[in-house]
Structures are given as C-alpha cells and as structure tokens.
C-alpha cells in the first residue's frame, strides 16, 4: 500500500546526516559535558559546534545566546516563566496572542495563578492574524513581556512579528516569539525580527526529539526554571542530552542550506493540495490564510462539513495516509482547539477538522492520491452521517454554503444532545 506522511507538524524523520553525526556520542563519546578529562572535553567541542550551527541558523548575535532545553515546550516555559521570574520587579503583566500554543498559554496561566501576574489576551482576526495595534493598546506600564508565535501551530498563520517588535521596542518591552511551527519552514533572523527571546524544536524539521532551543539575547534576563547544576551557563540545569544537541546542530545547518529548496518544493505541493481539495470536495473550508504570504508553506487545516475528524483520520490511516485531527474527540480533553474558537469558527466546522502538514519528501503523486482518497472518505462518512441526511432533507443548513433552509447544525446538535455545544 502507498504510504504518505502528512503529519510533519507532529514530528519528522531524523535526517540520516544528523543520525550519523549523533551516533558516536552514544557509545563512544559518551562523556558528560562537565567532565574535565578528554571524554568530557570531546563532548564539549561537539556541543560548541552545535551551538554555533544553531546560532547561525537564526542569525543570533552569539552562540552564547543559544540555550539547549529538552524540547519546544520546555523552551517556551523557560522563556515565559524564566523571564517573568527574573523581571518580576519591573512589572507583572504579560500581553499575549490568544492563539498561542498551550506551552505558552499554560505557562502564563501558571504565572497568573501562582505568582500574581495578570495578562491580556490579544484577539486574532478570522484568519488568525493579530493586529499589531492591539498589542500596543494592551501594553500597560506593568507589562514586561509580549508573547506572539511566528506561525500558528493549528492553522498556519504567519504573524506580523516585525511590526509587533517595533512596538515592543518603542515601549521597552521584551518580545518572545514561539517559532516552533515556523522554524525550518520559513527563514528566521532573530535580529531582523527584533525579538529578544525565540524558541523552536528541531524535531519539527528533521532534527532529533529530546532537544529544544531557546534564543535569548542580552536584553532579556532569565532565570533557570529547572534547578540544580550550572549547565547551560546556569540557565538550564541537568546533564546535557549531548547526542540530541549534536543532531540539532546538524539539522539546523542542513535546514539553513536547503531552506530555499524545501520551501519551493513544499509550497508547490501545498498549492496542488489546496486546489485539489477545493475543486473536488463540497462544503469544505480552509482554516487560516489561503496559501501565500500570510501562511506557512507546509500546512493546510481543513474543516469538512457534516462529518467528524477522527473518522477521517482513521480512514486516511487505513489507506496509508497520516494526517492529524484537531477535532474535539481526538484530544484527551474532548475540547475543540482553542485556536479554532479564537478565529470564531462555527462549532460544526471545528468538529470535522483535519490538519495536513507537508514535508520535503512528499511528491506530487502523494498529493493526488490524498485528494483521491479524501473524496472517497468524505462520501463514506457523509453517507453514514445523520447530519448530511438532514442537510439533504433541508432540516439543517450548511455553514459554508448556506441555503437558507433548516436549523443550523449547532442548533440541531444542541437540541438532540439537550445541551448547548461548547
């Protein structure tokens, strides 16, 4: 059976070059970075090089600005909580974008609950974009930090970071950019972006799991959030995950080298997939911006009316196609993605949500196969769906192409469940 992996935003395969670079650090160069003998020093050399590769990838002022963590989530925690901890005396207010990833959102929530912080969520427009002027309006004299992601993890929206950093710099507030959904898929230059903190996850662009990166320049003092030894210059305690750090360096170097090609290739596939889906499937909606300058080149987030997401995912899987589903029944919390709520997506559409994320090894054939299979999946699931039937019978209406007949899906769902959908 054909196998098509369209879940690159969940994780990517490790580059063979990265694996080869990591290999000796498992069984041969296994020393601890803090050891002073040759075993430690060899490792120190390797990690120094990786830090330089990572710094170059995002044009950091210095390799010393790179802090290795265990992943994107820990990096976000360190940025938000570490900065808050170090700068609490200056103020206790944080401004953030309402569609941040949970690692940022829940870190801020923790500061509110446990450290007396307050925060202002800045809303986004229907394609998920923030208005920089809303950031300006939200900044108070207590504000110490603004958090805005570069690319949204659910719907692929690129945020106007440069315009935002002009405001934060003017106001003398630090800007933290979560670039986990961006790194490897668009060029990142921290100096041009004008942010003081930026994080990303190499496993999202063919690097290893188990390592994350926080860029932090002199203007943003942070304190370690994992307490213990003085590793990473006292900013992150714990024996370093050396093989993963080495692999991260190689993944960054190769991503820097191949970025143009990767973007060109994936953008083409994205367009082909978009066109195929839109022309073949009725009552389907793209969430987030259309392919183009406002959207990262590698993802498409779809809502297909009258069917639910997990069934789509399962049927795709049975055809060898891997996609992600943001639908309510998939995550353990049974909640609709807060990103979809934030863009005001109708509950009916939030249900049938599928995220397809492309990678460098996908082909045009893959895309055509996916579109082909998807038309079958939609037919199969709509055929089973009482809502589709009721739509045909004009009992309920489409959100995407309203006919003016019948209840809304949401009204109907609420009436049969006896409770309003949330």
């Amino acid at each position, binding site marked *: 059976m054909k196998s098509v992996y369209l879940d690159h935003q969940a994780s990517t395969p490790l580059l063979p070059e990265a694996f080869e670079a990591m290999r000796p650090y498992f069984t041969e160069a296994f020393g601890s970075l803090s050891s002073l003998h040759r075993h430690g020093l060899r490792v120190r050399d390797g990690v120094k090089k990786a830090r330089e590769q990572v710094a170059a990838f995002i044009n950091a002022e210095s390799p010393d600005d790179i802090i290795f963590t265990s992943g994107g989530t820990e990096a976000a925690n360190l940025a938000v909580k570490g900065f808050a901890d170090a700068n609490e005396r200056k103020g206790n207010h944080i401004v953030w974008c309402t569609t941040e990833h949970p690692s940022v959102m829940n870190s801020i929530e923790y500061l509110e609950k446990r450290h007396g912080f307050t925060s202002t969520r800045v809303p986004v427009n229907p394609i998920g974009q923030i208005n920089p002027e809303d950031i300006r309006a939200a900044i108070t004299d207590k504000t110490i930090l603004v958090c805005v992601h570069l690319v949204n993890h659910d719907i692929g929206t690129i945020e106007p970071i440069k315009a935002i950093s002009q405001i934060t710099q003017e106001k003398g507030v630090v800007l933290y950019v979560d670039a986990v959904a961006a790194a490897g898929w668009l060029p990142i230059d921290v100096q041009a972006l004008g942010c003081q903190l930026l994080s990303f996850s190499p496993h999202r662009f063919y690097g290893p799991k188990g390592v994350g990166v926080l860029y932090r320049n002199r203007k943003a003092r942070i304190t370690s959030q994992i307490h213990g030894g003085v590793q990473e210059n006292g900013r992150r305690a714990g024996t370093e995950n050396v093989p993963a750090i080495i692999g991260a360096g190689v993944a960054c170097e190769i991503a820097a080298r191949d970025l143009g090609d990767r973007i060109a290739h994936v953008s083409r596939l994205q367009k082909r997939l978009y066109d195929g889906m839109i022309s073949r499937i009725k009552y389907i909606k793209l969430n987030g911006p259309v392919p183009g300058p406002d959207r990262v080149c590698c993802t498409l987030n779809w809502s297909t009316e*009258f069917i*639910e997401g997990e*069934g789509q995912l*399962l049927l795709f899987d049975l055809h060898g196609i891997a996609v992600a589903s943001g*639908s*309510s*029944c998939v995550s353990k919390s049974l909640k609709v993605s807060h990103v979809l709520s934030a863009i005001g997506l109708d509950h009916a559409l939030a249900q049938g949500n599928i995220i397809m994320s492309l990678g460098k090894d996908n082909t045009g054939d893959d895309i055509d196969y996916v579109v082909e299979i998807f038309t079958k999946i939609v037919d199969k699931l709509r055929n089973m769906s*009482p809502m589709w039937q009721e739509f045909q019978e004009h009992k309920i209406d489409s959100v995407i192409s309203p006919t003016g007949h019948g209840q809304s899906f949401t009204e109907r*769902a609420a009436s049969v469940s006896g409770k309003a959908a*949330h």
Partner: protein
Amino acid sequence: MSDNEYTLYNETVMDHFMNPRNMGDLPEADGIGEVGAAACGDIMKISLKIRDGKIEDARFKTFGCGSAIASSSMATELIKGRTLEEVKNFSNQEVVDALGGLPPVKIHCSVLAEEALKAAIEDYEKKNSLESRTAPEAATA
C-alpha cells in the same frame, strides 16, 4: 484493506468502523431515536422496526468518531431479535464487551448508543399508545 499492525482500536472495533453493520435508515421505522453528546459533539440516530414486541430490524446513522460508529454498529447488531423488555435493560457495557473493550475516553460513545436505542424505544412507545400498538398486532396475527 489494512496491512497495519498499529491501529487505534482493537480488531473488532476497527472491523465495525470499517464495515459498519446496519448502517442506514429504515424507510418505515416504528421508532427513531436521535441523541447527541454535548461533550464531544457526536450525534447518533437509531431506527427500529418492531414486530411482536421484538426488535425485528435496526439501523443507525452516526456523526462521530470511530468508536461512535463502531458502537452504533455493534449496538444495532446486538439488539436485533430481542424483546422490548430486554432492550430496556440494555446497557452500554454490553457494547463495550462485545467490542472487546474501548479506550476509557471513548466509553461515552457506547453510552450514546444505549441512549439512542432507548430514545428509539421511547419514540416507539409514544407513537404506539396501548390501543394503536395492539392494532397492528391484530393485523399481523
């Protein structure tokens, strides 16, 4: 269709999801139940054909995840031939057991099947007050 040794659900659930039994509507259903789970948005509709106080036939339509589809498929399969009295005691656990288990977060799907079934029976009983229920019995007798 699948050469996949890694599946979200067990073989029975996957089978009922991929090849649902009794999917569709009964043109002249005696009772129809449609229920929804507010928590996750699933909607399930079960239609019953009832004859001589027994479930003669059952069909479902489901808007929901794989386990919701499998649960409704299995529930309709299980109840065919049972008496109304038996079906009133039907519990979601029977669906879970017949499916060989569901993940904890998916148990509510089997509950939905139970609810849809009971709603269909209620609908039937509402439609058929005692006199109207005896009439067709007489006719077929």
